């Protein structure tokens, strides 16, 4: 082992507690970045894989460009293409199995979403190989029968002869399983096959298909045939299977950025602690370093030694962070999984750690540690050999440098610009720059702030308070660097407090606005396009006919495409929808917008889509539909709660039927008449919903309660993270107070020699710590309020419209944490100062 590594290890081992605490700070940041980045792809993968149709081994697959269905006549066009030997059409859609009808799985949960393929029993086997495992294949003339994939059969213990109930447009349909087939190689979906007409009826898509598969004549050029077929079909078609997920892209990216921002802030704090620790190390070891230099160690060797120590901590901390991150992702998956499965009817797989995630976490973990160690290492390199013989006192203090403050101010300005840009990546960078700027500006603010707080302190600790204040004012640089440890921790606390308060009020306003009806007939997946089977017009009629129901409105859904983005296209009734529910508008007038929807091809874009595509009201967009491209005018920007995270546009149901051929209701909302008996109305509605297992009946209040619980759980997790975030700042404060005591050993000796009692010395250190934490808290509040405000602003810019709420509770918490930390952090250094051997302290150089 290299001598330097051995020496570094010995030094680290010699200060076990400090080594562990500082390493933990790095581990913590790495854990967050690694864990969260492992969880996000798992969420994405679950969404994509389970809702995506499996790729098959055919020569030619054609689907609608917008993921919508198209008329069966397209099949004839493909068949008529020269070079096509066989072609078969199918209607493939994910379907949520209602929980009451879903088979139990071995892990105790119920089957969630399956992929239903309506196929032509005659032509499908001509293009695909179906290998029967048990039972038989579909036959012409079959009605409600299913053939299931082997993987699903195994998972849900299904076999020929079993029955499975699936939701349909008219309520529910019972199917008999007649066969089990081997799945396509590499297929991950739980697939079931039924005759095409049955699927069309089930999904309210008569005469329509969404996939054509074909084989070409042997020996012909498959590529040329594909192109010829596509050309004959005209616009609105594409080669390849239906892909799911681009409407989720923005939400996934935002989730990743938010987690990364959190992780980077934590790592920044970890880096800051490392920086502080190594500053302590360099002060503590001045004599050792001087001696090393005296006996022939070069500057580079000394820098190398300190960097080796920080590298060792970085490597160990990062490794621990990776392990912790893995378990964090597992743990979060275990907590989020059931919620996810309940809300979306999709099962969440294990965490997915991509190579890029490793690179990011390892790079940041070790990189931050090395960068943090660099400055102290360079200052260690500057220690002269003379200091082995005659160490100077308090060299590590920094005078308030105007240039540094100006640079800090410039950083703050750049940060403001980054945050004002509305780009979340720039905003994240801006947040870090802002805090860094504040730390640099800090020293020039120390004197005035210490003056104000010092007067308060003198009321409690008269003499010692004055000395403490003087100590701070004398070393503003050192005081600022100590206080900034608190600043970063508390700024994060206050900012998150501000953001969660604002988020909470914003979310509940959305819920009230868009799901504020008295009764909701909700599908089982909260992602409307996630396999929910809509109902035909009979359901809305039935609800409307219930005595005591004043108004009913419904929501329909199809997939469209604008530019390169798949957009959920939601069909609403422009008249009844605003009366029963409504959208939260961020641009345009609600009344005008809904009126525009009723009048012609107009749409309301939701926030995330408009932010992604930088839309303006009045702008014209081209919506790709199975009927070809259609021009829609943006009548407003507004959003509802359920679709807030997905790129979505709202159009009239009339236009949805005309352009996207979708007439099924996927969500129904109803208001009760003022004089109606709630119990009676509910009982009637329950009877209706019992016929439609794809829906569950909820009152508006129940709905809010359900979301409140879900939100509460998420908040508890966040609060836990916030508290753990605050702990590293305590470590940093303790570390820097430790340096203060160390640097002033002789001064403390003098105080004791001229008659200060141990208790007075203790009170002086506590007073200093309180002043420092007051300073840190003041900066932290300032930074946190601003940071919170711009974070909410950045969220607004990404499409989540919400007002900023002043985080009173966050501020009270931060002040309390600041004071308590001030005292706790002072305990050890104060004890150390009070116990200093008087003579040794006086001799200390």
């Amino acid at each position, binding site marked *: 082992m290299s001598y330097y590594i051995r020496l570094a290890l010995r030094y680290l081992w010699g200060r076990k507690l400090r080594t562990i605490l500082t390493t933990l700070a790095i581990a913590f940041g790495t854990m967050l970045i690694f864990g969260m980045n492992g969880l996000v792809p798992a969420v994405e993968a679950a969404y994509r894989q389970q809702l995506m149709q499996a790729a098959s081994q055919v020569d030619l697959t054609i689907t609608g460009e917008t993921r919508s269905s198209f008329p069966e006549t397209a099949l004839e066009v493909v068949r008529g293409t020269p070079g096509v030997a066989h072609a078969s059409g199918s209607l493939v859609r994910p379907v949520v199995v209602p929980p009451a009808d879903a088979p139990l799985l071995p892990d105790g949960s119920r089957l969630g979403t399956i992929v239903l393929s309506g196929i032509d029993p005659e032509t499908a086997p001509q293009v695909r190989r179906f290998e029967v495992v048990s039972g038989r294949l579909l036959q012409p003339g079959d009605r409600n029968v299913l053939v299931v994939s082997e993987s699903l059969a195994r998972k849900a213990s299904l076999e020929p002869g079993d029955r499975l109930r699936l939701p349909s447009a008219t309520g529910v349909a019972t199917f008999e399983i007649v066969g089990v087939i081997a799945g396509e190689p590499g297929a991950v979906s739980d697939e079931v096959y039924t005759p095409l007409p049955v699927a069309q009826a089930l999904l309210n898509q008569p005469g329509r298909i969404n996939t054509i598969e074909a084989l070409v004549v042997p020996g012909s050029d498959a590529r040329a045939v594909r192109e010829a077929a596509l050309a004959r079909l005209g616009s609105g078609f594409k080669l390849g299977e239906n892909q799911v997920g681009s409407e989720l892209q923005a939400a996934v990216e935002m989730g990743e950025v938010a987690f990364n921002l959190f992780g980077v802030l934590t790592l920044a704090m970890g880096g800051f602690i490392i920086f502080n620790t190594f500053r302590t190390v360099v002060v503590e070891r001045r004599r050792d370093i001087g001696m090393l230099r*005296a006996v022939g160690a*070069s*500057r580079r*060797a000394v820098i190398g030694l300190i960097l080796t120590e920080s590298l060792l901590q970085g490597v160990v901390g990062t490794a621990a962070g990776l392990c912790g991150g893995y378990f964090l992702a597992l743990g979060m998956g275990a907590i989020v999984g059931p919620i996810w499965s309940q809300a979306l009817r999709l099962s969440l797989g294990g965490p997915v750690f991509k190579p890029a995630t490793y690179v990011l976490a390892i790079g940041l973990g070790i990189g931050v540690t090395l960068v943090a160690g660099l400055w102290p290492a360079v200052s260690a390199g500057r220690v002269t*050999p003379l200091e*082995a*013989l005659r160490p100077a006192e308090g060299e590590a203090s920094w005078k308030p440098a105007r240039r540094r403050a100006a640079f800090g101010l410039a950083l703050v300005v750049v940060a403001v610009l980054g945050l004002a840009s509305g780009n979340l990546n720039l905003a994240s960078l801006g947040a870090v720059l802002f805090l860094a700027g504040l730390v640099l500006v800090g020293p020039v603010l120390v004197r005035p702030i210490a003056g104000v707080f010092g007067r308060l302190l003198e009321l409690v600790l008269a003499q010692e308070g004055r000395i403490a204040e003087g100590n701070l004012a004398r070393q503003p640089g050192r005081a600022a660097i100590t206080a900034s440890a608190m600043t970063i921790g508390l700024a994060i606390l206050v900012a998150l407090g501000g953001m969660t308060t604002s988020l909470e009020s914003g979310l509940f306003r959305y819920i009230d606005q868009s799901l504020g009806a008295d009764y909701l007939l909700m599908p089982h997946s909260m992602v409307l396009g996630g396999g929910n089977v809509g109902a035909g017009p009979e359901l809305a009629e039935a609800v409307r006919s219930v005595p005591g129901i004043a108004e009913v409105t419904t929501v329909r859904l199809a997939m469209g495409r604008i530019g390169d983005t798949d957009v959920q296209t939601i069909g609403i009734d422009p008249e009844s929808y605003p009366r029963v529910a409504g959208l939260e508008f961020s641009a345009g007038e609600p009344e005008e917008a809904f009126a525009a929807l009723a009048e012609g091809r107009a749409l309301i874009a939701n926030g995330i889509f408009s932010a992604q595509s930088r839309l303006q009201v009045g702008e014209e967009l081209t919506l790709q539909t199975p009927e070809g491209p259609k021009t829609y005018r943006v009548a407003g920007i507004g959003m509802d709660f359920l679709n807030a995270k997905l790129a979505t546009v709202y159009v009239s149901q009339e236009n949805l039927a005309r352009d996207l051929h979708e007439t099924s209701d996927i969500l129904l909302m109803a208001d009760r008449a003022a004089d109606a008996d709630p119990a009676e109305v509910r009982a009637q509605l329950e009877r209706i919903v019992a016929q439609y297992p794809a829906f569950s009946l909820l009152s508006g209040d129940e709905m809010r309660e359900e979301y409140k619980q879900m939100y509460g759980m998420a908040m508890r997790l966040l609060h836990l993270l916030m508290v753990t975030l605050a702990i590293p700042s305590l470590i940093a404060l303790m570390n820097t107070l430790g340096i203060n005591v160390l640097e002033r050993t002789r001064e403390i000796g003098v105080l004791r020699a001229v008659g200060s009692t141990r208790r007075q010395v203790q009170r002086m250190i506590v007073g200093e710590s309180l002043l420092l934490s007051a300073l840190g808290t003041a900066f932290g509040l300032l930074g946190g309020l601003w940071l919170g405000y711009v974070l909410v602003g950045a969220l607004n810019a990404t499409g989540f419209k919400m007002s900023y709420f002043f985080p009173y509770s966050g501020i009270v918490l931060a002040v309390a944490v600041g004071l308590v930390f001030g005292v706790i952090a002072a305990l050890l250094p104060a004890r150390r100062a009070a116990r200093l051997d008087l003579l040794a302290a006086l001799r200390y150089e």
Partner: protein
Amino acid sequence: MAIVETKELTKVYGRGDAAVTALRKVDLRVEPGEFVAVMGPSGCGKSTLLHLVGGLDRPTSGRVALNGQDLSELSDDALTRLRRREIGFVFQFYNLIPVLKAAENVALPLVLDGVSPRKAQSQAQLWLERVGLSDRTDHRPDELSGGQQQRVAIARALASEPALILADEPTGNLDSRAGDEIATLLRRVVDEWKRTVLMVTHDPRIAAYADRIIFLKDGTVVDEARLVGGNDGAEKLVRQRMEDL
């Protein structure tokens, strides 16, 4: 050729009104194999002289030459190499690395010079044996007495086989018995191991172990004495000279 030679060596700390002249045009010659002590009252510049000779500090004017090599011509890296190979330092507070064992502390200059760890370790063992600490090689500094720590420091100073040992108040932190042991050891460094020792001390009893004593006052060499005969006589002589200062 003298191993150490200074010409009009001057060192001024601070500027303007606050300027303090620590050394003023000091001319000094130390021949190979000599044991020279530098004495003088507090603040006379004796430590400054040692630092300049050791290349730890740069003079304001004048020159220092080691074996004819002018130190002012050397870069920081070259000075570092010179300290590593040509000079051994012994400090008042021993300055051992607290986390390293005795043998590892002794091996340190060799390791810094790129000697293989095994060879450095065996060299360190040898020197610890010579200074009478063969049974303490695996002890850390806090497990050793002050006198033992200083012997480890002397072994460290000798490990890289330097021609010159610079000792700054090597007995200043020790009781008289341990001080005598260290002075005796420094005497052996010259007599037995044929090194040159330049030692700063304020203790006449320790200075009496040297061959020659240089007296400094207010930054200038004011007297010089060559010691012959027993320690007792030398000590008396040194005390007398110190009183005269």
